[in-house]
């Protein structure tokens, strides 16, 4: 019986490494955002107000309607407020989420090279889907 460790597919390692390091980076962004949240005094998204409202059980619409923003923020709102702690925290999370796309594309390239064309194509379609979904909302 074979007792040697089988080789690990390079496409998997590429996928895993890209996501792993992007996620670690996004965690650091989120830590920075959290610290900023608590330190800023004059902001449209005050952290004390947000935490209180969430744990008091207020709905999403109520929370944002009575904030300085007046309406729920979307991805573009967060992008325009990146100097703000709350927006930076959401951006950090979004960065981790989006790390899937490059990981999929690089990994698909290696799958293609190893003659797994069908799965490489499904991977690229999935990667494209992951990139497009943030913008689908703005079409409606």
């Amino acid at each position, binding site marked *: 019986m074979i007792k040697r460790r089988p080789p690990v597919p390079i496409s998997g390692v590429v996928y895993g490494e890209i996501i792993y390091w992007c996620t670690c980076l996004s965690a650091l962004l989120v830590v920075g955002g959290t610290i900023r949240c608590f330190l800023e005094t004059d902001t449209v998204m005050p952290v004390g107000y947000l935490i209180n409202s969430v*744990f008091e059980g207020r709905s999403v619409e109520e929370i944002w309607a009575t904030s300085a923003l007046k309406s729920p923020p979307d991805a573009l709102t967060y992008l325009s407020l990146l100097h703000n702690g709350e927006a930076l925290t959401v951006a950090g999370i979004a960065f981790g989420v989006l790390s899937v796309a490059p990981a999929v594309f690089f990994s698909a390239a290696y799958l293609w090279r190893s003659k797994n064309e069908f799965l490489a194509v499904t991977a690229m379609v999935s990667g494209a889907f992951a990139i497009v979904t943030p913008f689908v909302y703005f079409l409606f």
Partner: protein
Amino acid sequence: MRLFKRMPELQILLVCTIGCYLFLETFVASNQLNDFFGLTGVDLIFISFFMSFVVAIISVVAGVGGGVIFTPIMLAFTSVDTLIIRSTGLVVAMFSGLVASGPFMRKGLADIKLVFLGALPILLGGFLGSLAAITLFDYFGATGDALVRLTLGFILGLIAITFIVGGASTEYPEHSEKSRLATRLKLRHMYWEETLKRPVRYDVHNVKTAVFLLLCVGFTGGFFGLGGGWAVVPVLNLVMSVPLKVSAATSGVLLAMGNSAAIWPYINAGALIGVVAAPWMLGQIIGGIVGAHALAGLKAALVRKVLIVLLFLTSLKLCARGIEGIFNVNIPIL
């Protein structure tokens, strides 16, 4: 301890996160919250981080994703808005899987071909599910919330039953016949089984059925903010005949990918409150790394038993709250 020495990035993340929360606890004046035993906002964030760390280890080892523990418990035992819980639930479900992708792929425990086979149906299903959740909330408001709790209660009960029924039989499933479609797609793999100290080879079966089931799993995961790992493991293990450990690892990776589409409708509806989701995300990342390294040398049976009890209890509470909301009655459970 050896794990922390071997991985400087884990040390950095842990030091930064704990340092951040200690700094906030020490130097930042945070108001006490109403009805929360005199706790401040910072206290709650620190507690959330610790709970998330524990949930991440349990969920990675069990291969279910943290969302299946986080979302039902929060829906059952707190009054936080369901959309906020579900969006944070997706973050919880996702990030342990995202960060565990690295160790799982390095060790060859997760199967990248299965990940890409299942990715598209899960992504599509997850995105449609979360759009449906936002729409339901817009039309039904509080009644919609109660309906979500009741349905989720039933689903959790079913998940627990699935774990009981499927848990005993299939650590290394075997099939005499090979699937033609799986052979054409080269869906066969071999991994090193640490507990047996030898490689284990497997072939994949029932590809078409599994793809359809993964679409349904994606929808349910996106709709309830559960992720979907709870059902991906049974689909991979019971339907496709993939060994249990590979199923758990692949499920974590697939889940992370699938939820990357499902989270966007919530972000664009303002339902992801960064400061509330942040400690859960950080706990998932650090706990996910620890859990992923623990999985290689663990028998998952004990964790699964704990999970089954947890799922049944939460299911009971969710059903009670759902019925209370719909029929305006009081059911005294906990």
